[in-house]
């Protein structure tokens, strides 16, 4: 039986002058594009054109802030407090963000169906507020077309709608965009903690009702 003798690469041509989807990273992309353009290229196979590059960057920025109240940052911070090494903290943050992104995209399934139907009918979600309005203002400022119906969406959904309009239609693309945007902030937040300073951690947040255990006074 013949077995392959090579690993197949389709995105990154390795070597001293690596290519990403055919473009020379060092001589071409680094001279003419920004990092978010490289992310866009990685996820879609093509460089952003016109307003799309700046719009994608705006969407990533709006997606980026991940609070320590959110599971990925919370777990990574606790790992750091437990004196886990930085690479382990990074792994916890990455696993948490991947799970958060998966969960978010799954929960937004009604939104994605609505987008797939060209936004026909009422929006699948409601709750548009100031952050969504600010996102739409920023997208307009960079020349991106903005669908007024998205104003009624909560921010996370509006971001997904924006990514959808830029051509990120597969779940893995949407999830990857969130992970890329958020990971540096989750890691930084976690690493801002002092290893071993477990006295600073609110162990009762949230509380556990441990059935069969006498309640503490």
């Amino acid at each position: 039986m013949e077995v392959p003798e090579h690993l197949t690469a389709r995105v990154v041509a390795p070597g001293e002058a690596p290519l990403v989807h055919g473009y020379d990273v060092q001589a071409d992309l680094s001279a003419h594009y920004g990092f978010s353009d490289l992310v866009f290229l990685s996820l879609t196979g093509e460089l952003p054109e016109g307003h799309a590059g700046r719009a994608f960057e705006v969407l990533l920025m709006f997606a980026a802030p991940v609070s320590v109240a959110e599971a990925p940052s919370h777990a990574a911070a606790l790992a750091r407090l437990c004196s886990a090494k930085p690479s382990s903290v990074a792994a916890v943050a990455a696993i948490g963000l991947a799970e958060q992104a998966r969960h978010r995209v799954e929960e937004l399934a009604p939104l994605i169906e609505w987008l797939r139907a060209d936004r026909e009918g009422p929006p699948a979600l409601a709750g548009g507020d100031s952050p969504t309005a600010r996102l739409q203002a920023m997208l307009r400022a960079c020349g991106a077309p903005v669908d007024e119906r998205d104003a009624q969406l909560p921010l996370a959904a509006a971001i997904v709608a924006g990514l959808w309009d830029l051509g990120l239609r597969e779940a893995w693309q949407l999830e990857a965009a969130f992970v890329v945007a958020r990971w540096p902030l989750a890691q930084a937040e976690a690493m801002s903690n002092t290893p071993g300073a477990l006295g600073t951690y609110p162990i009762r947040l949230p509380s556990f009702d441990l059935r069969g255990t006498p309640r503490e006074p």
Partner: protein
Amino acid sequence: MSLDHPVIVTDLGAATHGDNLVRGLSVRDDLFGRETRWSLLSRFVQGPDLDRDDAALLDDVLVAIVAPDPRIWPLKVGWIIGAYGDWWAAGAAVQAMLAECRMGPWACAAAYETATALAALRGDDATDFEKRAVAWIRDQWDVGTVVWGFGVAGGAGRARDERMDLIDAAARRHGRDQHRHYRASLDAAAAIQAATGRAPNMALAVASLALDLGLTRAQFEALMYQVVEPQVLGNAYESARLRSPALRELPLGYVRYVGASHRRSPAALRSDGGAGG
């Protein structure tokens, strides 16, 4: 251009026609019906041959030290990640954080050094051993050395590690309580606690049993992960089952921000003509 074809040499495992090999032994002919989980694990990490009584000892140790309270910090990490519904990811996160983490299997493995030192200190002459052990540990503490295997977490409500009694019962049940490292560790620990007030923890007891089984430090750490893994899995599984929204995101009122104050970027200031503030 011809390439050097990389070859990795290992006898860990091999699939053959109708059988599998573990370190050259046939699952079908050599291991099935004879091997236990612990002997198989030891074989995987190139550890000593563990018989059924060794395995029974490790089973007793596993149960003796089980501490599945979700508030235990590494287990809490599993709860937080597991809140999205996937216990595999939650378990992976806990396993990732335990690498060289100063609690859990790594800390137990660190106690291996303490147990080794205490047995060496006793040597073949137990004369004044307890006194020498107290002097030894004071010397370590005087220069700031952490002596793993001593100290009990949990504040004033937990003056001793309650698991020590169960581990001792397991050691006696399986005839290990007089073995070299275990005896030296426990005798030294009693004297050290009496002299200094610092109680031993289960890591010292388990590490000394591991030494008497013939495990190296690295092998012991790997097997210790298997000892704690049931409670990691249990908590991850439970969290994935319950999918707590509170663990996915706490109300922002519970966050106290102590970072940089609000400030405007140089670009924003330039675009305002410097008039912003």
